[in-house]
């Protein structure tokens, strides 16, 4: 028995010392690693959108950035992946305000296409072909009559995947070129439903609308993982109904927990509630943080938009 205690304590001490050592190393290397990552990212963004006067605003990490020159939106940069021959090909694509590709960049990192064949997608001549193309032209020659991209000999799958990644990404993300709505327009259908009429008057762009007998506003609250959007219809001091952004509309809370708030049942708990009583609405167990976010969004939107503008 005594022997066993001794043996186990040796193991224990070794593990403890190791943990201390590692946390020390981790703490000291982390800032350097992160700095390198953000430096590489910035360099890559500038390669895809070569203009020294712009600044990039992240809409979604590692996926889409808006490009501003001063106040004006001059384009987007996106990253979209498509399965190649033996790895995911993820080009970084700069797009100007007219929707034409400026430049694409396919980083070697994480790419495991066949060396000397599929890996040629990282070569400059292949990537330069994309510059200046519009959506309809981003096909391989022969794949589509408007196609303007020459594939790589003996690497059709890789070149097709790279081309498709650019084309599909552009199709998916080109909506970000229009207007200032960072969150896209997930709420359009819900807006019509909540306002009760089709022709709503926009009082503040993307934030506040006026319908016949009510106001509708859009507000966001900081949830457990992400921003949770809430659309609220209100008359005087009483919330008439709300709609919470659901996962299909881009809400990114914990699946099965935070996402539960986006249900008709939970939304109906807010029907005809006096604005001062919002905090009294029962939260859902397992989704406390997300419920808080919803309540906060309703209250802050009310204070900011309704109290301020009246």
């Amino acid at each position: 028995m005594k022997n066993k205690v001794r043996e186990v304590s040796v193991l224990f001490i070794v593990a403890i010392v190791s943990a201390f050592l590692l946390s020390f190393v981790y703490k000291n290397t982390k800032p350097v690693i992160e700095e390198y990552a953000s430096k590489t990212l910035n360099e890559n963004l500038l390669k895809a959108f070569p203009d020294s006067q712009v600044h990039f605003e992240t809409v979604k990490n590692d996926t889409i950035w808006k490009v501003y020159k001063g106040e004006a939106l001059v384009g987007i940069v996106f990253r979209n992946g498509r399965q190649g021959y033996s790895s995911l090909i993820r080009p970084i694509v700069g797009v100007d305000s007219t929707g034409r590709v400026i430049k694409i960049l396919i980083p070697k990192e994480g790419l495991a296409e066949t060396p000397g064949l599929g890996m040629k997608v990282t070569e400059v001549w292949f990537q330069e072909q994309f510059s200046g193309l519009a959506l309809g032209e981003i096909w391989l020659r022969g794949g589509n009559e408007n196609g303007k991209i020459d594939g790589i000999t003996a690497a059709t799958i890789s070149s097709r995947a790279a081309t498709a990644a650019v084309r599909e990404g552009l199709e998916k993300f080109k909506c970000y070129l229009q207007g200032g709505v960072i969150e896209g327009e997930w709420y359009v259908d819900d807006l019509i439903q909540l306002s009760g009429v089709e022709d709503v008057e926009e009082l503040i762009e993307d934030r506040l609308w006026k319908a016949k007998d009510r106001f509708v506003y859009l507000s966001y609250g900081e949830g457990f993982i992400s921003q949770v959007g809430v659309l609220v219809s209100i008359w005087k001091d009483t919330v008439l109904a709300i709609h919470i952004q659901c996962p299909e509309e881009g809400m990114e809370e914990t699946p099965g927990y935070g996402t539960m708030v986006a249900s008709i049942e939970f939304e109906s708990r807010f029907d005809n509630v006096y604005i001062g009583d919002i905090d009294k609405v029962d939260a859902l167990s397992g989704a406390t943080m997300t419920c808080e976010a919803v309540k906060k969004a309703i209250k802050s939107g009310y204070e900011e938009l309704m109290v301020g503008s009246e």
Partner: protein
Amino acid sequence: MKQTFLDGIIKNNMVLVLAIGLCPALAVTTSAYNGIGMGMAVIFVLVFSNLLISLLRNIIPKNLRIPIFIIIISTFVTIVDYTMQAYVPPLSRQLGVFVPLIVVNCGILGRAEGYSYKHPPHYSVMDGLGIGLGFTIVLFLMGTIREILGQGVWLSIPGVFPGFQVFGEAFTNSSVILMILPPGGFLAIALLMGLFNHIRRHK
């Protein structure tokens, strides 16, 4: 001492004689620089884990020696991994998962179990240096063979140095791609093993 060091390089060469640690040897040696990088990481882990295990050899209980070895080895591997990510990120990306995989490199656990657990610290460090250097030399040679035949250049460092042009432009454009693919690794290792055994036998 000197003999221990030399034995590590020649008589107990990890790749060519013991034929262990082949997985990283085959996977990362697409260029000479990668081979050196991997070899350095292994030398560091091997020397320090050998030293520590040898120092603790009278305290480490026999029944629990394997888990303790693994903890010690993986600590040093993680230190190497973080350090490489921070200070030589391009190399770290090239070697990828094979740096963390040093933990399960049987060469290192083998030296812990077979050598440093039974020998005093200074011998263990020498053994670590010798074995590690032997591993590095083989990886460097494999990388050299594969890089020169497969890409026509030698000692290229991504983003820093394009490498010495060994053959002309015409070769670079139609190089032996097979050599930088997995089969090339087997060919290179077979070549080195054959040569090594031939020389040893006829010495």
